[in-house]
């Protein structure tokens, strides 16, 4: 092991302890797993099981795209429901933007 590596790396003893404990923890049933870890999948929505992103088809569409030349949209979705929908740094001026649009 080189000197420069020793100075920036964790000791072999500390690593050995951490890895061996981790190995036994990982083998334990999930209920006994570290509960401070927040792990999210999409299991809440069954139909999203195979949420795979876009796929090709060989079909056309009957939906219509209404392309306007002037931009007239404002974000109007769940962003308005968060605990602090506006930014403390002044980005999130939804109301101001709405006023400007007309």
């Amino acid at each position, binding site marked *: *092991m080189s000197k420069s*590596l*020793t100075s*920036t*790396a*964790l*000791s*072999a003893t500390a*690593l050995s302890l*951490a*890895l*061996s*404990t*981790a*190995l036994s*923890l*990982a*083998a334990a049933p*999930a209920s006994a*797993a*570290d509960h*401070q*870890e*927040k*792990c*999210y*999948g*999409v299991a*809440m*929505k069954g139909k999203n*099981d195979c949420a*795979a*992103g*876009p*796929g*090709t*088809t060989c079909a*056309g*569409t009957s*939906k*219509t*795209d209404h*392309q306007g*030349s002037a931009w007239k*949209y*404002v*974000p*109007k*979705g769940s*962003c308005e429901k*968060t*605990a*602090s929908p506006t*930014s*403390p*740094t002044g*980005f*999130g001026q*939804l109301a101001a*933007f709405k006023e400007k649009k007309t």
Partner: protein
Amino acid sequence: MSDQRLFAAALLDPDAPCPAGLIAWNGSDPARRFAVYRNNVVVSLIDALADTFPVTLELVGEEFFRAMAGVFVRIAPPGSVLLVEYGAGFPDFIERFEPARSVPYLADVARLERLRVRAFHAADADPISPERIARALANPERLPTLRVTCHPSLSVLRSDYAVASLWAAHQGHGDLAQVDPFVPESALVVRVGLDVQVIALPSGGDALAAGLADGLPLGQAAALALAASEDFDLTAQLAMLLRVGALTALAQPTET
């Protein structure tokens, strides 16, 4: 100029005239018929982005999202016939997109969604066996230089915003009204079996996972993590990485 070049240009430019040389049996204006192609192209590509970025869509609403995606589609149509790769540049576009500035975390949520699709289709790899780890533990003095291979689906997203919590609240995990978007979070994205997981990482956890993914020796990645946070729990984070199958191989570099 070739016929297809003109046709292609007119597909993406709503102000371009209908290409010359198109006809209809009844002599009707072919522009109306050509509009079907224009619409198929733009709508199907917007749909593709909506499929990849469903939470991004929910955050700003369908009308805003589809209009924003329409601008992107016309500027940056897919460069590959593999639509699963489409939208890699969409988060960067969102970040520069003036009308979305009021939702500054939107681009990072989009980055997280893009990483999820990438993880979903990434190559398969088996997790390291406990026996292999036990063998590594038999030579503790060599652990600091051990190099770890991460699962091909693994990526780490570091954000100034609460990306993992924002994303999770849209899956029914937690209440969106309780999420402060302006709290920095890091997220680990990894496929576990057939499901892509998003795991909120504690301070230092991002350094460990990203360090290992970048090929740093175990000792160096762990030291970076501990330097990032005094409270960093190396054992818990290694256990988490092992439990989700995020680590797939161990190798000792040949001595130099």
